[in-house]
């Protein structure tokens, strides 16, 4: 499996990370090195083996579905790069 420039560009797009065109060849090379390393997993016989879901065999705890917290608008917005009138502000999303 080899990553070409188009695939590298597509992955960057999916990850929402801008990558300049002239940086794509180096990025594709690095992907190929890492994926080449990962390819070794193909040697392992995994027939009938369950993929691990949880490393400790514990049931996740359940809790009552009720409101236990709230009224923290100020705290939640306090680190926002742009907050206005009690909301997070972002560039226009819908034309």
């Amino acid at each position, binding site marked *: 499996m080899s990553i070409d420039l188009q695939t590298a560009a597509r992955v960057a797009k999916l990850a929402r990370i801008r990558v300049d065109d002239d940086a794509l060849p180096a990025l594709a090379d690095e992907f190929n090195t890492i994926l080449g390393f*990962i390819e070794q997993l193909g040697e392992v016989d995994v027939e009938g083996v369950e993929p691990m879901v949880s*490393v400790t065999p*514990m049931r996740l705890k359940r809790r009552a579905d009720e409101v236990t917290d709230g009224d923290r608008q100020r705290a939640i917005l306090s680190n926002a790069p742009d907050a206005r009138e009690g909301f997070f502000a972002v560039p226009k999303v819908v034309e």
Partner: protein
Amino acid sequence: MMTDLNALTIAEARDRLRGKDITATELTEACLARIEDAGALGAFVHHTIDVAREQAAQADKRLQGREEAPALCGIPLGIKDLFCTRGVASQAGSRILEGFRPEYESTVTAQLFDAGAVMLGKLNMDEFAMGSSNETSVYGNAVNPWRRQGDDAALTPGGSSGGSASAVAADLCLAATGTDTGGSIRQPAAFTGITGIKPTYGRCSRWGIVAFASSLDQAGPMTKSVRDAAIMLGAMCGHDPKDSTSADLPVPDFEAMLTGDIRGKVIGIPREYRMDGMSAEIDALWAKGRAMLEDAGAEIRDISLPHTKYALPAYYVIAPAEASSNLARYDGVRYGHRAKLAPGDGITEMYEKTRAEGFGDEVKRRVMVGTYVLSAGFYDAYYNRARKVRTLIKRDFEQVFADGVDAILTPATPSAAFALGEMKDADPVQMYLNDVFTVTVNLAGLPGIALPAGLSGEGLPLGLQLIGRPWEEGDLLNCAYTLERAAGFVAKPEKWW
């Protein structure tokens, strides 16, 4: 000669604080002075002097009280930048969290402060804990206080908890918090001649710790002795309803379990950890550790963990996959950095520019690798296959434990600390090989401890690792304590900074 207060262990300081021989304020001031003087180490990246003095004053009041204060009362600690600390910068070593001041306190730091611990400041680390040399940090490198004999080259303290390791080894604090996803507590501990334990997955709450790979991340203490690791671990762990993977199990008194008696315990030596091209020095250290445990009355048994070779490749699928999902939250909307936008830029450009500016190269690489292995058409071939291999790796350990092995002895790292910049031209996989002995432990969710056991020919510390059964940190620490006493490692770096 009187030991400088900052050079005390937690256990020594606790006894002297309780004995009214010293005060928390004196102890804290000794550390602050030493930190002031250690800028060249790049260990402390946010100083919290006012917080430290206030907490020390509170601790002194508590130490005057009628009830016996907790062991950590008045003990000055450094906190890895990955832990969210209320009102104090918590950036995970990343530009994308510049200016972020959490409105909440991580469970682990809250427990430490409830026990009376003093926070001296936040410690350097690889960005989002992704790295093995602390060279991916937005703050610049942390530097190892150790140097090779007759050589001024600056060495890495390891990573990702490089600032924690450097600070503890240089006596800037009594101990520090670390986190470990693939070896990030144990590798830096080994590179700097200190002790670091990663507990069983689920022992420490992950709530309020910036997430890297949630199924692998665990917090743990980095300390000057095994006893200190036992004391501090006890204060860090325990059930937390805010972390659904936190274990609802009682926390034993780990320190009380340090008897130094391991007679009859079975120590496994895994043959797959004898890597091709392993240095003679590391091999000799491993043999020495084996002999010391045998002398202490343990039974040494050669064992096999057949899937060891596939641990790193499985890790480099699973960890980036989880990271790509966890780091999706850095979008420039709710906290941290947002890129300046050009006229006409929409929300997608905001995400793409923000993440391009905010993340460093290694983080971008891993997020994109994770995105790729989770993408349509590759999910089964990479991600599901890696999770199956992870099942097999865990099964290897379960098998040897079922056969009666109590703990497993391995080298902690393939080499002593290397020079900063030395890996600059190497491909990313070369750097990943640093974690070859540690990463299996995260994949299997087991407790692992690294402790110093000798010096290299160049005068640098070398560490051994012990791996324990799940939830049996107490026995593991006792085994490490026995090894520590036999190894008698007392060397300290000579002050050059």
